């Protein structure tokens, strides 16, 4: 071992508690960075309703509909006419609901919708 390594080891031995704290902080920092990057990259952030700016979304009436009450199909059992019609009865209402509702529809970010368009009449209206 070199002289410098010996010096470093003796320094650490002298300040064991401080070294422990520093290592703990470094480990916590690394885990926080990894956790946050996973939180962002996995898409969890997009369904986290406790983020700033989204307060109240979870509490709004009918805003969040749970799928807990939806009936599930069993992966076990025999295949028969009955089991296939059971599957159909489970999936059909969902298929029908797809055509009834439009999601992410409309164009709320169009310049006209936000009042950012350059039309003369809209500008005059804004001036009035």
């Amino acid at each position: 071992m070199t002289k410098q390594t010996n010096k470093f080891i003796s320094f650490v031995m002298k300040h064991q508690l401080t070294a422990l704290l520093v290592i703990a902080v470094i480990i916590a920092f690394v885990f926080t960075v990894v956790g946050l990057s996973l939180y962002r990259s996995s898409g969890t952030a997009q369904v986290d309703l406790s983020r700033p700016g989204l307060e109240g979304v979870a509490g709004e009436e009918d805003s969040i509909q749970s799928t807990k009450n939806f009936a599930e199909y069993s992966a076990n059992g025999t295949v028969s006419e009955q089991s296939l019609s059971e599957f159909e009865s489970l999936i059909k209402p969902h298929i029908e609901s797809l055509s009834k509702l439009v999601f992410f529809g409309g164009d709320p970010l169009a310049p006209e919708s936000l009042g950012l368009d350059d039309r003369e009449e809209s500008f005059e209206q804004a001036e009035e």
Partner: protein
Amino acid sequence: MMKKITLALVVFVAAVAAGFAFAGSASAQQSSVFSERHKLRIVESCTSAKASLARLHKTDTSMRVNRGQFYEFIGSKLMARLNSRLAINKIDSSKLIVKTSEYEQALGEFRDTYRAYEEQLVATSQVDCHSNPVEFYQEVAKARASRAVVQQKVADINRLINEYYQIFVEFRAEYTKASQGVRLD
């Protein structure tokens, strides 16, 4: 040797300067596309536009959560379960499995595109539209394009669910036909 190094340095500095000049002129050109009247209009509508963005963020987030849960449910609690049950009973369900795989892929793309859209929406909300009306307008346009992609992904997923169902209906008809044939024999 020194001359070569000097020449290389001069070329490098000139290239960097040209790059900056090009970027600057492009930015100026983009900015000049907007008339003063249009910029004024953006600044005037800025506060209400930001409020609309905040509202849209909230409604789209709840829609994302609802749709995400719904699509996850369809994929894992219905499609995958049926595929698994057919496989356990050694019944060929390759068409259904392929469609489920396409569905899972589309669902992943939906998550990714929504993330990109949401990040763009947040970035747009953070632009100071009073001092940078042109930048704000351009960021709104980017968010609008991202939202259109999300809309397209939702349409793709809905189409795949319908296609899965059609394959299931065909499968069921074939199964009924085959089982009736077995009974007749």
